[in-house]
């Protein structure tokens, strides 16, 4: 068990292609960190640098108090779970789990005990004598986890471990990973491109884009106060609505429509407005609102997503399925729930913290 410190780390591949630049990240002991971002954002590269599978071009990685830039992966005291599991196909499950321990010269009795314990924890005891070929996707995934657990490493590194599973299994394995990590209290870094996985698993999210960190924060913090339009559009489903608007004093103009902000305007002039689908509602007759032209709806059961336009800009709102829709409805926005981003840099404008951002994080009852 250890903390991990990533200090100004960058990666330049031979040939000059830059994958990652200036990553600073301090991970506390026992913390569950999720690196999330679109493909090609450098999240896997960063993880592999921490694992020691890629050389570190710039900066330092520390595990515990030790700088590990030049340390072999096996000596970094980490365990990794791969996307395709990378189980050894010719070995039984038992040997797959035991291989790393054997290489370290762990006594046989201890190997037996640790494998048995991990197998019990993951409920794969009855498969120990099987070859990976004879296992289902979910079981292979468990074996891959088991291979990490038996080592009792200082940190678990997960490289998109669930993306080869079907949707249902993914949800249950997600829960299991979380439960296991809580129970073992091992520092974990988890890479995924799935924002839902990121939100549900993370103690803290690290959103990456183009090899740089866009935002670091607790899932709700990132959700309720995205640091940039990129984070706003990446985290949350449906994605946050981003529209162009103009601030005139205390009034916000979106296309032809104008709404009052009641003192929530952080600046003036052209801005990018962000608003979550669930923060929009269908307006009453008498209130100030935006004219909305409905294009199509999506039924989610508990919610109904209505897609349409305000002026010439796309807007998606999540409304109750019980409300009747009409072609000439209007959309009301709570000014307190608006996000303002710079139109040039896409960065969140200062002085703009929505009320909901100060929600208490739900402490797990585990």
């Amino acid at each position, binding site marked *: 068990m250890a903390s991990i410190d990533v200090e100004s780390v960058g990666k330049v591949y031979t040939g000059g292609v830059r994958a990652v630049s200036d990553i600073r990240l301090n991970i506390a002991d026992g913390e569950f960190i999720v690196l999330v971002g679109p493909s090609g954002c450098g999240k896997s590269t960063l993880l592999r640098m921490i694992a020691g599978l890629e050389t570190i071009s710039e900066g330092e990685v520390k595990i515990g108090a030790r700088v590990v830039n030049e340390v072999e992966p096996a000596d970094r005291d980490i365990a990794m779970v791969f*996307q395709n599991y990378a189980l050894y196909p010719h070995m039984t499950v038992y040997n797959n789990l035991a*291989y790393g321990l054997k290489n370290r010269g762990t006594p046989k009795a201890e190997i037996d005990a640790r494998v048995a314990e991990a197998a019990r924890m993951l409920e794969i005891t009855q498969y120990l004598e099987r070859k990976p070929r004879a296992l289902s996707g979910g079981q292979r995934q468990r074996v891959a986890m088991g*291979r990490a657990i038996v080592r009792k490493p200082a940190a678990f590194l997960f490289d998109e471990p669930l993306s080869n599973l079907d949707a249902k299994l993914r949800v249950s394995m997600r829960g299991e990973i979380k439960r296991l990590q809580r129970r073992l209290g091992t520092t974990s870094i988890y890479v995924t491109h799935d924002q839902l996985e990121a939100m549900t698993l993370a103690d803290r999210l690290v959103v990456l884009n183009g090899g740089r960190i866009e935002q670091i924060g607790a899932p709700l913090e990132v959700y309720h106060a995205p640091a940039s339009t990129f984070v706003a559009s990446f985290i949350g489903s449906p994605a946050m609505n981003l529209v162009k608007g103009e601030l005139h004093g205390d009034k916000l103009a979106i296309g032809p429509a104008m709404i009052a902000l009641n003192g929530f305007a952080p600046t003036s002039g052209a801005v990018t407005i962000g608003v979550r689908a669930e923060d929009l509602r269908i307006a009453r007759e008498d209130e100030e609102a935006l004219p909305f032209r409905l294009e199509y709806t999506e039924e989610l059961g508990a919610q109904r997503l209505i897609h349409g336009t305000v002026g010439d800009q796309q807007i998606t709102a999540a409304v109750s399925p019980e409300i009747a829709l009409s072609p000439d409805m209007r959309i009301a926005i709570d000014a307190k729930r608006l996000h303002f981003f710079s139109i040039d840099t896409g960065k969140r404008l200062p002085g703009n913290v929505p009320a909901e951002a100060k929600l208490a994080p739900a402490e797990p009852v585990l």
Partner: protein
Amino acid sequence: MVENRPFLNFLTHLVLILGVLMVVFPVYLAFIASTHGPTDFMSGIVPLLPGDQFSANYGYLLGTGESTAGAPPFLLMLGNSLAMAIMIAVGKIAISIISAFAIVYFRFPLRVPAFWLIFMTLMLPVEVRILPTYKVVADLGMLNSYSGLVIPVIASATATFLFRQFFLTVPEEMMEAARVDGAGPMKFFRDILLPLSRTNIAALFIIMFIYGWNQYLWPMLITTEPHYYTVVMGIKRLANVLDGDNQWNLVMAGVILAGLPPVLVIIFMQRLFVKGLVETEK
């Protein structure tokens, strides 16, 4: 092609049976001839049923050999051939699997040129370089020795290439997982690559064993002592009687003896062989 038409069935079977007969008949004839006396095939009527000289012919050939034709006992030559074929097959596999491992998993200067150099030698048959090779072997004093028989043909570009292709299909994560598990390069090779290559090794062993067994030109060039003759050369010796008639019964017995070991190897390793060519286990 899941059709069930009686006529087509009949036709395909007819063609297959005819094909098998065409291949098997000469072998059958050779076996028949090897069980008759020396003069039976000179009469003009070819017997189609086994004769009564089976044990006499084979016993004579295996134990005594045909000294007038310069052929030592076949038992000795079979032993030589077996030793040579096994050494060639094992040597080729050992060398090529290690070079393929180096080419695929290590980054060293001139790695790619090295691979292309190996690859290019695929295009050079033994016959092209046979004189320079002979000179080298002669200068090294390896004429009339097992090392002379084996070493010049022990490197195999084909096998190196096949192992390289196989290693490239092994997911990179496997190597990374092994690294995280604390296995160094040689340990990874021994514990993971070698077992995974099992079927490929078996398939190559068969191919290379038969290649080694069938060596003709090279052993003929470098062995002048009957003690080192191989069985394929021996047949040539048998059929090369200077005066008098060829003893076809003995020649055919020699042919059958020389053909048997490769057949046995294939029969016993067929399961692995087919697996190696078809299945990629990952």
